[in-house]
């Protein structure tokens, strides 16, 4: 089903089990944050891992998703699913324009164009009145799901976040293992050859880019509702740096890698918070270790050791 290998199916069931048992062991709000970032990292991995496009501006789609969801939930009183969907569509809309411009170049030029456009978004967010500048949009209410189911309790919100994450995760998996995904991988391996086989590679890359941005926006919107805030942190390029780190630590081009990476990085940020400046130092050390010692990431190395596809 859905193109899972046997090992992936077992991994998926294990992941679902962890998501169900998780809130009994760990703090639910922390897990919600992990799930939001896991979806964001999976969306990023869709581009870098399967199409080989290194975007440097994913924080823009994530952050604008945050802002739009927060703003519509707070000022228009939209229900939760509509607000999150609007966040996703904002990401997709931005991605459609930025991607259309950026995919005309490849490699470092592609990365720089996406970074430049994302910085423009950041400056717009500093200046635009609706974002609240450096104070951000604060005290966003959690609107009821479908206008009926209250999300005030953390556990109700948790199941919504878990549902959104699993849907996004399965969608990405389906995309990657569809004929469309096969073409994406062909482009990653050898783009001129894919062109010579008759594929319009630019169109494929553009669609993959928009899909990735859409899911980033969804992840951002969900996070805005979890915490009830949307701030400049979400659109800043350092946010993008974190998601790169998550995908890298977990394992690029693996299905479960970004999820593991999100758990590791958020766990560090959360549980090392009392050690002050050591958070950033530890993050740096882990990044160096990852690049030097295990380049395939945690899940990537595990898969290689077990000779499995994870």
């Amino acid at each position, binding site marked *: 089903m859905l193109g899972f290998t046997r090992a992936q199916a077992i991994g998926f069931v294990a992941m679902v089990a962890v998501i169900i048992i998780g809130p009994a062991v760990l703090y639910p709000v922390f897990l919600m944050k992990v799930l939001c970032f896991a979806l964001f990292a999976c969306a990023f991995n869709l581009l870098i891992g399967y199409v080989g496009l290194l975007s440097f501006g994913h924080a823009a789609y994530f952050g604008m998703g945050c802002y739009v969801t927060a703003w519509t939930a707070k000022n228009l009183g939209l229900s939760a699913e509509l607000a999150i969907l609007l966040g996703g569509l904002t990401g997709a809309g931005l991605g459609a324009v930025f991607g259309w411009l950026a995919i005309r170049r490849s490699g470092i030029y592609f990365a720089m164009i996406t970074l430049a456009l994302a910085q423009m978004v950041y400056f717009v967010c500093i200046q635009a009145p609706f974002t609240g500048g450096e*104070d*951000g949009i604060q005290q966003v209410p959690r609107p009821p799901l479908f206008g009926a189911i209250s999300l005030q309790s953390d556990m109700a919100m948790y199941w919504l976040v878990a549902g959104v994450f699993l849907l996004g995760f399965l969608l990405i998996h389906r995309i990657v293992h569809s004929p469309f995904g096969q073409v994406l991988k062909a482009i990653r391996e050898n783009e001129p050859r894919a062109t010579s086989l008759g594929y319009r590679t630019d169109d494929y890359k553009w669609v993959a880019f928009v899909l990735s941005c859409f899911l980033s926006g969804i992840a951002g919107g969900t996070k805005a509702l979890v915490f009830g*805030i949307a701030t400049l*942190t979400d659109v800043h390029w350092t946010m993008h740096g974190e998601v790169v780190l998550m995908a890298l630590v977990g394992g690029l081009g693996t299905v479960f890698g970004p999820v593991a990476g999100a758990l590791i990085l958020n766990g560090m940020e959360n549980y090392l918070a*009392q050690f*002050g400046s050591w958070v950033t130092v530890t993050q740096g050390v882990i990044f160096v270790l990852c690049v030097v010692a295990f380049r395939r990431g945690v899940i990537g190395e595990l898969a290689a050791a077990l000779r499995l596809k994870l």
Partner: protein
Amino acid sequence: MPMSRRALLATAAATALPVRPARAEKPTLKIGVLTDLSGPYKDLAGPGAVDAARMAVEESGLAAKGINIEVLSANHQNKADVGASVAREWYDRDGVDIILEVANSGVALAVAGVTKEKNKVYINSGAATSDLTGAQCNANTIHWVYDTYMLAHSTGAAMVKTGGDSWFLIVADYAFGHALQRDSTDFVQKAGGTVLGAVRYPFPSTTDFSSFLVQGQASGAKVLGLASAGTDVINLIKQAHEFGIKMRIAGLLIFLTDVHSLGLEVSQGLTLTESFYWDLNADTRRFADKFARRQPGRRPTMVHAGVYSSGLHYLKTVGDMGLAQARADGAATVARMKATPTSDDCFGPGSIRADGRKLCPAYLFEVKKPSESKGPWDYYKLLATTPADEAFRPLSASACPLVKA
């Protein structure tokens, strides 16, 4: 001697059992200090703020009454979501009763929202935004040391009275800078001064301020106002020194630690507002000496003083109310704190208004020349004092729903 596996397990279990910590018999109160331990506010708040909270705990005398007080600290990394999730986890899982400090306006507002939701207590000392006691005020939050309105008011109005009656403003082009520009222009004009011009520079990432400084000098104004904060202000002051700008420079948000890192040679003559200076009187010096014993070679900023003073007032209120009652209802504790006059070494006698604004005098300081300074940390001379009841935004102009109701 060989040992059977069963015996080994039994021994292990027997030794493991008493290791579990016995439940604390004493009633416990938990104070969380949420601050910037790694970023730009580390010096002016950071570890010193945690120590200031510990000082307040020691001096409260609650330990002698059989109340156990724990001080927790965490780094919000200047990210609102990290701050909000630490606050949530502290309230939900760790049983924290009060959060102190929280420099950075975005994080501060997020923590205020969480605190209201959980009905706990939150006293901010490090954030600048006057929204904490304005449009976004709530019944669980108190704002202690300063805010943007007070800084602009003191620096703007008091500066005019001491002869600086024509201004030119260099403004960071974002909401915070605009607010400072609007407020200080207003106060300068009300005090009888004039603002000859203003220039906005792109924020962030402007590092070369030469053209803005030259425009300021060409305006012929007596005072150059810096409506900005953080590293931008440091750069502006350094570059103004290098250009030999002959105007009086008024910084709208500068801390003692900024002056310390700039050095007197560069920062001499700078005018700024703070609500606390360690060398103000015998009481503040006593606090500073105690602080220096914990943070050797350092002097407290107004944020450190605020954490100490607010922690002390909270603990005094807890002592009056009884621990169980104070822990049960954050809003009631805050109401009680507002009803009780404050008094401590740092800010002297004071009070807390209905909107959560702590009132204290605002001092206009000038940074000394190197020749006037007697040693390290001897940096300020007092120019003017704005009394507590005039220093902050009047309640009649407040957008706080607590006041309107």
